[in-house]
């Protein structure tokens, strides 16, 4: 899928990937790719500005942790992030429903 289309939904994708549990940048990218059946191939470098922004907005928290013997920055969904995810998910469902109605009317 085109990168500029995905870019507008990157935060929703990241928050959704973190819903399952904490993860570092690389594992988040993998989770998005795997859950989309390989369809969503992000420009991987665009993930970190998004993660840092989500952290500034207190939607995720992060800390250095040892993962498989290596020190990694691990991100976790905050309470505020969980609420934001639910709200953005609902907005997306409404959009998807409306879009389907329009496309079905062609």
């Amino acid at each position: 899928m085109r990168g500029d289309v995905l870019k507008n939904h990157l935060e929703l994708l990241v928050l959704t990937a973190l819903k399952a549990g904490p993860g570092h940048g690389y594992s988040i990218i993998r989770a998005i790719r795997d859950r989309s059946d390989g369809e969503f191939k992000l420009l991987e470098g665009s993930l970190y500005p998004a993660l840092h922004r989500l952290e500034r907005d207190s939607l995720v928290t992060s800390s250095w942790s040892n993962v498989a013997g290596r020190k990694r920055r691990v991100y976790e969904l905050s309470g505020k992030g969980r609420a934001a995810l639910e709200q953005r998910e609902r907005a997306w469902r409404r959009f998807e429903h409306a879009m389907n109605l329009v496309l079905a009317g062609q």
Partner: protein
Amino acid sequence: MTIDDYMAELERELRRRRAPRVRLLRETEDHLHDLCAELAADGLGPEQAEARAVTQFGAAATVAACFAEATASAAAHRAVTVTAAAFLAYTGVFVAFATAASPLLRDFPQGAASFMALQLAAVALGIALVRSMRWRRAPAAPTTELTAIARALTVAGVVLIGAAVAEIAVAVSRPAGVVAWSDGRLLTLAFAAALAVLLLSAIAAVRAGAHAQAADSLSNRHVHASAAALLVDDVETLLARLPLPQVSRTARGLLAHRWAATIALAAFAFVAVSAAGVVNSGRAGLAGAEALAAVEASLIVLSFVAFGRTLGLRDAV
């Protein structure tokens, strides 16, 4: 390209854009090594795996620009919050001065500079707030908007600092013995505290401007609209979220005819200040009130002439 070459280039690109580097570089390096290991496990040779990994991560200039724009956006939003706090602090001190201070302290010209500066700062801050609110939930605002926000905040900060300095100058130039230090001690300290907050807000505005400029000069998203055109778009976008079509139409009309709107505002201010003077002092005070009203109306027009472009209210000719 090897991972080491890529890291060196990314560091250079981030440095050119004044973006924070340490954490992003560390995370990028980890990411690239993970990706490289995965690609090698899929059968690629070491050199091919490194080359593919850096390609998949994205061009260093693009990643750095994306990060710098997000950083510049955050700096601008933070500066708006700090300046709004400084504005409220100064307004609080001014209101305390105007209502509770000894009449000896309130003699003209004490307070006049603050009164004028607060009005101009309110307009500048309002413009910055509108621009900031429009983009607060976006990953990054266009750099033209960020530059306009920083300029508006700088205008607000500079006029308020100028007013605070003028108040202090007037206070200390009073003949000794007219007003006892103890009469104005709390108020003077409050003005000094407000001045300290204003200096902090000015630093935040300057930092936001520097980030915006660094991101703008090497932006990966060029916005060709002017700051004035973007302001119209911001106002319309924000008003579209409210169920107030009449307000939307009025705001659009005012922004489409900025000179006429400024003259109308000046005329309204003239009538309002004159009326307030007559209400307070009766018909005997009309001449003084009209002089004050003329100053107020002139300053509105002059401010539009002097600061209209800096604030992004009108385009450069």
